[in-house]
Structure formats: structure tokens, C-alpha cells
């Protein structure tokens, strides 16, 4: 129960309100160890993913992710600034994952597992003890183990999801176009253009607002 409340961002007396959630966005942090020789394989996979856009289709189709990143930290790559700091002495490289997504933790992991299972396996199979993204129960246990909490989380638009943002830009673009037309044509021509505008934006007018409250 406490775990569920914790994941959902509900205030707990011993910790205060957690900050994995801000408005409609959830900040996930995860870190997994990898044997150094395996990280080169993963770098190649990310290189291909970055340069062959069709490979990103499933990630784009998961339209509730606003931003996500993977960062490989080599075992000798942790920032070292001298002074009083002791240099790290690690056997593993580490894969850091940061995601900003809409919805709940369970929905996110479920969708990831259902839609992106091959892609996830390709990315995390090089990490120690990764059980595979299917079946989802073991996958969730693994993510819960390697996740750590956010201390402070800011978003410039807490009430908007990734889809709200995409829709808002479509509306803005259509409006800018109609504005140009409005200045240059007669009433009947404008009415026709306005009808076209309404048809274009009608499915993008859902208003942003507060997220449903968990709990």
C-alpha cells in the first residue's frame, strides 16, 4: 500500500510530498550497471536508433513521452573535480535513464512493455540482471529496484500533456494562416476559409487542465 502511494506521489507523513510528479508529468530516473565491453554494443544500437528515423516510430507512437534520454556513464567517466573528492573506482559502466511522461507509473511501464518490448530488450539486455520486458511483472520489479526518486521537478506547462502540446501547435499554425487570409479576402471567402480552419483544428481543441488525482 505504501509502495503504491509512494509511486502515485501521495504525501507520506515521514517524507512529505514527493516530487516525481508535477501536474501531468512524471519524472522517472533509473540507473543500471553494465559490463564495460557491453556498453559499446549499446552505443552502436543508440547510434543506429539516432540515425535511422523509422526505428524511432514506436517511441514516437508512445505519444505520452515528452522527453526521454539515455546516458551511458563509463566506469571512469564520473565527473572528477579534484579538491576533496575521491576518484570513483568502479567495475561497471552505468546506464542512466531519465523520462518525462504523462500518466501513471503503472500505465507507463505497461505501455512500454506492450508496445516497445523488443526495443526495451535491445537497450536494457546489456544491463546486469535485466529480466526482459515481458512478462511485465518481473520487468516492473526490476524497474522499481533500479529507480530513484526526484528531489525537485519543474515543468513550464504542468497542465499540458505531450499530445496537448502537439495539438496546441497545430491550432497555432492554423490560426496564423487564417489570420493572413482574414486580412486579404471578402466575408464569404473568409467564411469558407474559417470552415476549413474549424475542420482542421476541431480534433485539437481539448483544453489542458489539472490531472486526475491519484488516491
Amino acid at each position, binding site marked *: 500500500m505504501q509502495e*503504491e502511494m509512494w509511486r*502515485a506521489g501521495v504525501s507520506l507523513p515521514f517524507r*512529505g510530498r514527493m*516530487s516525481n510528479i508535477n501536474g501531468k508529468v512524471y519524472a522517472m*530516473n533509473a540507473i543500471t*550497471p553494465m559490463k564495460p565491453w557491453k556498453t559499446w554494443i549499446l552505443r552502436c544500437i*543508440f547510434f543506429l536508433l539516432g540515425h535511422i528515423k523509422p526505428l*524511432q516510430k514506436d*517511441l*514516437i507512437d508512445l505519444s505520452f*513521452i515528452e*522527453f*526521454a*534520454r539515455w546516458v551511458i556513464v563509463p566506469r571512469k567517466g564520473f*565527473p572528477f*573535480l*579534484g*579538491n*576533496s*573528492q575521491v*576518484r570513483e*573506482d*568502479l567495475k561497471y559502466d552505468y546506464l542512466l535513464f*531519465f523520462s518525462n511522461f504523462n500518466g501513471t507509473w503503472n500505465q507507463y511501464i505497461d505501455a512500454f512493455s506492450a508496445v516497445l518490448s523488443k526495443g526495451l530488450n535491445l537497450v536494457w539486455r546489456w*544491463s546486469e540482471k535485466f529480466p526482459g520486458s515481458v512478462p511485465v511483472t518481473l520487468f516492473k520489479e*526490476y524497474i522499481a529496484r*533500479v529507480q*530513484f*526518486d526526484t*528531489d*525537485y*521537478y*519543474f515543468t*513550464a*506547462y*504542468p*497542465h499540458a500533456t*505531450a499530445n*496537448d*502540446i*502537439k495539438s*496546441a*501547435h497545430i*491550432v*497555432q499554425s492554423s*490560426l496564423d494562416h*487564417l*489570420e493572413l487570409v*482574414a486580412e486579404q479576402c471578402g*466575408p464569404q471567402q*473568409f*467564411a469558407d476559409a474559417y470552415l476549413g480552419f*474549424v475542420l482542421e483544428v*476541431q480534433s485539437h*481543441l481539448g*483544453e*489542458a*487542465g489539472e490531472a*486526475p*488525482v491519484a488516491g
Partner: protein
Amino acid sequence: MPNQNGSVYGLTILSPIIDDEKATPSHDLQIRNYLAKLSTREESPFALAPGTHLARLVVMDDVIYVGMPACEEHLKSKYLIFESNCDGDLDAYLHGLADSIPDHLDAIWKHCVGYPGAANRLAFIGYMKACQLDTTFYFAAVNDKSVPETLRALQTQSAVAEFIASHQGADAATLQREFIRFAAHLKAQPLPKAGSMGPHRDIKTGGRNE
């Protein structure tokens, strides 16, 4: 460049936190205490400074042991992670932070090893870059719009819905006249503040969301 996706920059910084047995409370706890009291709304430092879409600060206590047969190992330092999704190039963004919120930066990063302070601009930028990690793969759902553009678009989206609803059945001449007035009025509106709650409405929520 993996740190950049379109016009959005993915900044990842790991700053080692000072490990001082004599400090009470410890430096990592002092950072956490400070962050716990910071606003996440329009008064947030990242709302006051330009160019932040989303940002997080995390104290990473240690790496995570995933169990046998993996080896158990530990970090020698705790790290402050700063993860930001921001507009433009890195130098301009860091300058913007140092110009707008130097006190907040100092209050947070003074607990980190070697932090020179935001007042010394060149040293500050050099420090942040020394702590930066290159992103290996970076995904942005919308990668060609700035923060002001997105705030403006969200404001427009809401206003357009109201305009359409209130002008159903209007004759062509009225519609054109009203639309031109509406578009001019919308342009004259101040930009919503980053981190603000946006338009309010009554939401009926039903039960658990988990």
C-alpha cells in the same frame, strides 16, 4: 550531436557533493532541504530563468545493486543530478541561469565540490561543463518549438475553442470582423508564465489513478 534534438538541448550534469563528516546536516541533506522548499510553479527559479521546458534536480546517493551474480559496488561521492530540457545552445542557457537566478544556483551548488559561484560567469560555465555528461540518445516529442512558443500555443488553443463555440451560426461579415478582433486581442495578451497552472476548470475526478 546527441545532446541536441532539433532546437531542444538535453543537458545532463552530475556534480559531486561535498563529503564532510563535520557538516551537520550533511551537504546532500542541505540540498534536499533547500529543494523541498522551492516552488515548482511560476515562482520556480526555472520559470524565472529563460528557456527551460522541463528540469529536475536529484540527489543520487549511490549506484544500485541489482543482486547476485552482479558485483556489489558503491560510489565514493554522492552526486547532484541536474537534468534539463532547454531551448537553444548550452552557453546561452547557462548564461541565462546565471543572470536570472544566481542566488538559487549558489544555494544549491555551494554544497558541491569545486563550485565557483554564479558571479564568476566564466568559471561557472566552465564548472557546469566539467560536470556535464554527454547524452547517448535523446528523444523529444516536440523538438522545434521554444518555451514561449509553446506557452503561446497553449493559450491560443484554449482561446480558439471558446471563440469557435461562441460564434457558431454567425453570418460571414460578423464572423470575419469578430475574428480579426479576436486575433488582434490574442496577440496583445501577455504570455502565460512558465510553470503557471494555466486555465482553471472544474475537474470531476473519480477514484484511483494507479
